[in-house]
């Protein structure tokens, strides 16, 4: 596992989601700050405009010739505080008569003179300009009319002010974000460190090392470690089994072939023809045993191999049992044997079981073989197929010598024959049952022989 790319990285995922979260927060805060900064800039500069307007309005008087105004120097100085900004002004009466200032300054629509200040932004003279309109009702000497002061100031200073505020705030935010992501990174690393520890342990492990991973994991990772340790244990067991199997096979085959060789050698050295015949007959028997042993060993290996490689298929249970049984019977015609099938599932095309047909065949063949090998003619082998609840029962009864109840567990082990057999037959049946997740039970048949029951789970529905 040298490559760590291509798959999801937890660290990357966490960091990405955190970064996206931070970015969203950053953007929404920035939007907030921008409007706040604009408001703040307007607020402060508007005060200057207000002050100036107030100062001017204070100097408006009613003279006999009409209203007159004298713009105080202080008012213009006040506005001039923003050095780079241009200033426009106009003082006019309610009927639009300009008393002084630029005549063509823009007015908002439907402006009615009022003593409340009215601010508005507009484009004027090629720049963004903020205007203030403020009126004063002049009365006296038979005169009564509104005089309005309009003062405008370009937005350069206030925009610069808002921008500066904005930039400072965002810089601070970015700093906080980076520090936050740093914490996240640190936290993720801390959290993942047990996983990395496990990875390191596994990576540097020798193939022969089956010891469990030693690490004190946090609660969240403990079950993962347990599972990995469980897997290691199972692998060890499986490898141990395989090694034991190979050792057993080697031993059994060599012994068997050795015996055969011995018999043939002895036969070839015999001067007496009768003795020679006896030896040859023994060699023949030994050959038959060797063949049977080899077949069973291969059958056992095949079942295990198929369990790893061939998926089970959804089949009509009774059909498979019939087909397989008919096939096996052909090979045992020369023995005096009464075969039978009793089925409560006849014509039942609905009962499906996940099966490996070859596996079922090997199991049945070995049971038949056992009966004929260990029992006395006339042999009797009866199959009983039954369905109870969600289970299918395959029961095989024979009239052989049967097995003592205390031996049930033992005979399912490999090479555990009670007499002259290879001791493989029932272990093959057991392997087949395992492969089908079927329960295997041994018992006594009505004829006093062995009863083997395999309980298969039934597959419901139409889907495989």
């Amino acid at each position, binding site marked *: 596992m040298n490559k760590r790319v291509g798959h999801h990285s937890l660290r990357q995922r966490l960091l990405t989601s955190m970064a996206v979260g931070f970015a969203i927060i950053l953007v929404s805060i920035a939007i907030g700050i921008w409007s706040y900064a604009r408001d703040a800039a307007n607020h402060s500069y508007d005060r200057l405009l207000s002050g100036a307007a107030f100062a001017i309005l204070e100097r408006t008087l009613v003279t006999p010739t009409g209203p007159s105004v004298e713009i105080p120097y202080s008012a213009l100085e006040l506005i001039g505080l923003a050095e780079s900004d241009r200033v426009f002004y106009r003082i006019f009466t309610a009927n639009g008569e300009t008393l002084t200032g630029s005549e063509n300054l823009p007015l908002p629509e439907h402006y009615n003179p009022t003593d409340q200040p009215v601010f508005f932004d507009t484009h004027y003279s090629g720049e963004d300009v903020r205007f203030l309109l403020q009126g004063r009702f002049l009365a006296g000497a038979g005169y009564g009319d509104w005089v309005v002061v309009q003062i405008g100031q370009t937005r350069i200073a206030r925009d610069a002010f808002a921008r500066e505020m904005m930039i400072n705030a965002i810089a601070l935010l970015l700093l906080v974000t980076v520090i936050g992501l740093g914490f996240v990174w640190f936290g993720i690393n801390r959290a993942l460190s047990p996983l990395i520890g496990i990875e390191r342990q596994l990576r540097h492990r020798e193939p022969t090392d089956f010891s469990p991973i030693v690490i004190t994991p946090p609660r969240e990772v403990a079950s993962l470690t347990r599972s990995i340790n469980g897997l290691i244990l199972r692998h060890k067991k499986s490898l141990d089994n395989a090694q034991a199997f190979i050792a057993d096979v080697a031993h059994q085959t060599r012994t068997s072939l050795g015996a055969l060789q011995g018999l043939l050698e002895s036969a070839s050295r015999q001067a007496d023809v009768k003795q020679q015949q006896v030896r040859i007959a023994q060699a023949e028997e030994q050959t038959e045993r060797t063949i049977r042993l080899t077949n069973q060993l291969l059958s056992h290996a095949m079942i295990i191999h198929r369990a790893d490689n061939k998926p089970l298929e959804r089949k009509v249970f009774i059909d498979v049992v019939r087909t397989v049984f*008919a096939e096996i019977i052909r090979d045992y015609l020369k023995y005096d044997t009464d075969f*039978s*099938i009793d089925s409560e599932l006849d014509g039942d095309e609905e009962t499906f079981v996940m099966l490996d047909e070859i596996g079922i065949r090997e199991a049945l063949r070995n049971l038949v073989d056992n009966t004929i090998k260990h029992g006395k003619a006339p042999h009797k082998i009866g199959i009983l197929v039954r369905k109870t609840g969600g289970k299918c029962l395959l029961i095989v009864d024979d009239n052989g010598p049967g097995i003592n109840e205390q031996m049930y567990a033992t005979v399912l082990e490999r090479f555990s024959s009670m007499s002259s057999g290879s001791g493989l037959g029932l272990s093959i049946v057991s392997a087949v049952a395992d492969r089908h997740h079927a329960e295997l039970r041994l018992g006594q048949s009505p004829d006093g022989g062995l009863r083997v029951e395999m309980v298969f789970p039934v597959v419901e529905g139409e889907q495989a």
Partner: protein
Amino acid sequence: MRILLIEDNETLAETIMDRLHADGHAIDCEYDGELANDLLRHKQFDLVLMDVNLPGRSGFDILRSMRARGDATPILILTARSEIDDRLIGLDGGADDYIVKPVDLRELAARCRALIRRRSGTASNQFCAGNLVFDRASKVATIDGRDIELRNREVQLLEIFIGNLQRVLTKEDLADKVYSFDEAPSMNAVEQMVTRLRKKLAGGPIILKTIRGLGYIAHIADE
């Protein structure tokens, strides 16, 4: 009978040849698939025994080209695999039977006899096994020369069993072949018919074995 054996393991080939010679068959042997295939184009055999994994040309290829030529010679496959390829054994143009190595020679000889017999009657109209002689033309079967007096249906039944030696036949199979559609026989009738035939065949080599719950299988007792 003339048999062709196609097997590349010489020791095995020799022992098989010895055994079949002893049974009175004329047997030729080929070690190479390609050569065997050529031979089969020009010569007619009564039975072909062949391995699947062969040098030159695989047994499956030979089988296919024989069937493509319309050559219906019975074929018995010798295979080292217990897992048989469906393409090899099938009703449609496959082999007639197979036997798994290591081969029990007695079993092999029995299978060969069964296969030869399945077809033999069709050529000579006469089926012989041990003391039984069955003449398909005259529909007369004799054991030790004595007519066993078969009725029409029993003759049909016997033909079916002979044509399917060592194969399990269900009662339905038998009913389908012996009765017409409108007769709609009971399974009981089939059973009785088999029982009668079995009684008449007693003393002969043909054994009609009942497999309760499955059907019947006919085989010839070891001579």
